[in-house]
Each structure stands twice: as structure tokens, then as C-alpha cells.
């Protein structure tokens, strides 16, 4: 069976900086639009990062969530033309997703009223 490839240029679809989590909905909508009537195994989605200068941690996390969700429908997600910064963020987020949650101690804070704070800032 011929594999259908959907190509999405992220710079054109969103911006040269991929920032908010909700921006992932634009990719989802594009995939839905381009994959009709076929959205099942045999479909591959190629996310092109050409001219993308920055990707936030939040957006990267959402890309991984998207990848996971697409895999359930046996749709493969691939990434091309990622620059060093983008690759680095993917590495950071990927590593952290595998680590166990760290419980941080709760500090007892004695907060003063702002007016009575001696420290001037």
C-alpha cells in the first residue's frame, strides 16, 4: 500500500517561533484537513522545521503528546530540518518525560506586608 505523506511547514503554518501549547491545535487541524478521507495506518506526517528559530518547552511537550496520540491511529510523525536549538529542546523535554517526578519540599514562608518590608527593591 502506498504511504501517504502529509507535509507541514511549521514556519508557514504558525510562526518562526513555536510558543504556546494551544498552537498544536493548528497542526492537528491541518492534519485533519489534509488526511481526509484517509486517517489510518499508512499515513505519515512530516513536520518541517525549516526557518523555525525557536521552540518552547511547552510546545515541544505538546509535539510529543501529538506523536503519542497519532501513534494510536498508527500514524507516524517525523521531523525534518530541525536546527541545533530545536533539537536541543527536544532532547531536554524527551529526557525529562522519562524521569520520575521529583517531589519538592514545601517551604514555610513568613510573608510580611509589602509596606512593612524593610528591603527596598
Amino acid at each position, binding site marked *: 500500500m502506498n504511504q501517504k505523506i502529509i507535509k507541514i511547514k511549521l514556519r508557514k503554518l504558525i510562526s518562526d*517561533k513555536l510558543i*504556546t*501549547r*494551544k498552537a498544536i491545535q493548528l497542526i492537528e487541524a491541518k492534519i485533519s484537513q489534509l488526511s481526509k478521507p484517509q486517517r489510518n495506518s499508512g499515513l505519515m506526517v512530516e513536520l518541517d522545521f525549516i526557518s523555525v528559530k525557536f521552540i518552547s518547552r*511547552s510546545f515541544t511537550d505538546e509535539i510529543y503528546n501529538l506523536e503519542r496520540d497519532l501513534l494510536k491511529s498508527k500514524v507516524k510523525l517525523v521531523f525534518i530540518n530541525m536546527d541545533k536549538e530545536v533539537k536541543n529542546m527536544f532532547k531536554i523535554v524527551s529526557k525529562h518525560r522519562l524521569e520520575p517526578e521529583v517531589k519538592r519540599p*514545601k517551604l514555610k514562608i513568613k510573608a510580611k506586608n*509589602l*509596606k512593612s518590608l524593610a528591603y527596598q527593591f
Partner: protein
Amino acid sequence: MDIKLKFKKSDLIKPIILNLCDNVNLLSQLDKKIKNSIDLSELQWVSPLSVLPVSSLLFDLKNKDYDFSINKSISLNVKSYLRTIKFFEGVHSHSYFKSNKNYIPIVSLLNSPTTVQNRDQVLSSFLDILLRKIGCKRNLLNGLTYALSEIFDNIWEHSQTKHGWFLAQYYDRKNYADICFLDNGISIKGAYEKKKIKVANDIEAIQLALSGKSTKNKERGFGLRTTKNLITRSLLKGEFLILSGQGGYYSGKGNEEFFNLNCDWKGTIVLLRVNKTKRNINYTRYIE
């Protein structure tokens, strides 16, 4: 009802917060049933932290059909500047941004599925202009982009606000930029309570957020902490302020303080003061 808002000219952040609280309390006294007058004559110098909260409150009052007029008995310079930064309703698109200016005007973005694409583009344009002014090298540019992105995204992810706001000003002679983000949403405490995470008060909520506790899952919750560390602990030597509900936190110049406000800000305000620098900073050190 006549009220006179307070604006103190100061390079320090604390006096501006005190005035902010005074103004929040004053504006809460306006009566919807009568004609109100708001006096801005004390406004001699505009800073994002002093003006953006007032803008958002006036916008909100207008949308709730409060009848008020603004008495702008202020200097021509200040009047002109307020007009330039689109006080008080702001702009909704980056087409109003000018790359040769030292400011980004007041931006008010609707929190709606229809504005998702616009938001990333607006922040991207904002970053391009402002960070060039600060004189960053590429690595630092990406570091600040990371920091500002996380703060910006928190507005849409957690606050449940109708509008997200921001305003930025670069001060040539002082060599720093003030970047202020704001929402009129449910506050950090409210966001935790919505997810059935118990917090005693706004201070504890801010502390929890700064420690990385997310309302959603473990990959979240890093934005505030890493942003704060990048801004204040790196060679940027900047200042970080967060106000939410009746609580606040400041970090900078080697100090940090949690404090109670004498007002209730319905939502969250973040101010970043970023110094101009030609240094190259490895921002990934601050990303956990």
C-alpha cells in the same frame, strides 16, 4: 464618583506595586449606577507595571458598561505617550509594532480558539523587536525567548482570563527593559483549586508554582522557576516580580521576598526587568 489614581515616578519596583494596590482599591470603588471621573493628573512617567494593570481594569469597567470619563490633566509628553502605547484599550495585532521604537504598545489578546495563531505571531514579533533593543547575542536571545514564552503561555493555559495583556518598554538611558504580562483570571491559587490542589493562600500558591508544581502533569510547571532563575541568577542580573491575588514575590539583586499585598489583584501579573547585555549566556543551564 471622582477618584484620583496614584502614580509614583520611581526606578524601584516596590513603590510602583504600592501605587498599583492603591489604584486597584480606588477603581473598585467606582459605582456603576452613576457617572464617575478618573483623574490621571499624577501620571508623570509611564512604566509598564503602573500603566498596564490600570489599562486592563479600565477596559474591564468599560465592557461592564460603567459610565466613566478620564481626566487627563497631564503633561503633553505623557498624554502623547499614552496615545502612542494605545492606552487603555490596547492593540490586538503585531501590525502596530514598530521595529525602530523602544516600546511595544499595550497588547490585549482575546483568549479564544480563534486567536491561537495570532498569539504566537504577536509574541514572536514582540520578541524580535524588543530583544534586539536589549542587544542580545543569539544564545541569550533564545534564552529570553524561552523565558517570555513560558510566562506568556501560562496566561492561556491556566488563568481562564478573557484577555491576556502585555506591555514592554526599553529605557535607553537606564539600559534595561521592563516587560509586563498580565491577566484578569482566576489567579494561581484559583488555578490550583480548580484542579483540587489545596493551597492555603496566594503566597503559598505562588511558592508552589515557583517550586514547579503543575496543575496538569509533570512535564509542566517549569516555566516560572526557570524563567525566574534565568532572569535573576544568570549574567543578566535582572529582576523578577509576580503578583497574584493578595500575594507577591520578588527576586533580584541577590534578594528574594514573598509579601502580602494590601489589595486583591484578580489574576496574575508578571514583571521582568532585563538588563541590556552583550554577554552570551547558555540559557539551557537553567532548563531542568
